[in-house]
């Protein structure tokens, strides 16, 4: 299950989270975002103990997108203790995403 995060809730839901948070910056008009979304959810479901999935709609939450300098979506950021510890962009197949996230999902 993914949580929907807004500009208002980003601090509490992502930066102050005890668990690492995978943030998926996306938008409804972005085809690749719609394709990668369900794959991220599947990975997060399979590793629910290790990581939380948070989705940020960049249209509705421009401040957060701007703060992290998003210029290309889908953009995936991993936050740990309030810090960005990993970021990558672009829709990729599940095995490639799992490799990119290997250090967090074991």
């Amino acid at each position, binding site marked *: 299950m993914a949580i929907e995060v807004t500009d208002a809730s980003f601090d509490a839901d992502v930066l102050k989270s005890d668990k690492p948070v995978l943030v998926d910056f996306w*938008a409804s*008009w972005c085809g*690749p975002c719609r394709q990668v979304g369900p794959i991220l959810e599947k990975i997060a479901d399979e590793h629910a103990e290790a990581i939380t999935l948070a989705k940020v709609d960049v249209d509705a939450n421009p401040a957060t*997108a701007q703060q992290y300098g998003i*210029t290309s979506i889908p953009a995936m950021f991993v936050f740990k203790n309030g810090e960005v510890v990993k970021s990558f962009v672009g*829709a990729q197949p599940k095995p490639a995403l799992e490799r990119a996230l290997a250090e967090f999902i074991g």
Partner: protein
Amino acid sequence: MRDVIIIGSGPAGFTAAIYAARANLKPLLIASSVEVGGELMQTTEVENFPGFPEGIMGPDLMDRMQKQAEKFGTEVVYDDVTALDITGEAKRVTTGEGQTFEARSLIYATGSAYRKLGCDRETELSGRGISWCATCDGAFFRNRHVAVVGGGDSAMEEATFLSRFASKVTVIHRRDALRASAAMVERAENDPKIDFRWNSTVVGFEGDQKVTGMILRDTVTGADSQMPIDGVFEAIGSDPRTHLVHGLLDLTEAGTIAVDGRSSRTSVPGVFAAGDVIDPIYKQAATAAGSGVVAALDAQAYLAELDDAATAQIGEADQPDEIERTGEVGNSQDAGDVETANATATQLDPADAAAAHV
């Protein structure tokens, strides 16, 4: 065993599926995991697909094609093909999740992949100001100066789309004239936000965390110059996606899969190819769709020949356990193929093989 597996989910793949499904071949279409719908998923308004005088959004068009294919019984798998075994009569397809599917025929419609410039610092700045998808990333460049590299229809479409957001769009083209269609060129030329930099290629990018500039080379004088830029959209064409069939199927000099004349028949019997993967020139949604029709009809004819040959052989056979073997022999083109086909057949479930031939 299945009759037909289709690899690819663009206009060629789904149109082949519509025809194959209507011919009761119950096609399995392997759509990929993240690129379902193919290249049109990244376009906006499609104005040149027949039957849509008002235009249609690329993703909507693909959604309709998929619905039409599924309506007649196409089964869609959302996974990527990672390996092919097409030497025997049974064509085997293995996916990223480790599933293996088998069919008597295969339609290969994997399309093409965006070409990259291959210049300095391109890889590290990808997604940091360098993009291949204006519809995805254009909105992040509101009131910024962006460049579009390329001179074809897709470059003009990107430039026109980006001018909604950007303060200025500079089209960078290596020649002094565009090869885009007249309608697209006219629209771009009449757009006050779009200007053109002719006879120029990009040889490098600048910027630490994101793109801040690029180095252009004049193709006439050879001189390099710097241009400050906030974002770069590459639209320099595409290459056929053939990496899985290297060494398995004959390719053309252009790198596309070689087919026999106007048919979709590849160098391997039972394997058909359609769409951009066989087309180095036209690469349109409508031509890909037509190509998908050809592949489905060719596959249908091939399967009918197999069935006819098997039926003829079965009629002469006294022993039930000869069904499988005689079926294989009947399909082989020459003596060299017989051995391969029989070796493959021994791994099949005899019940399946017999059922498929009746």
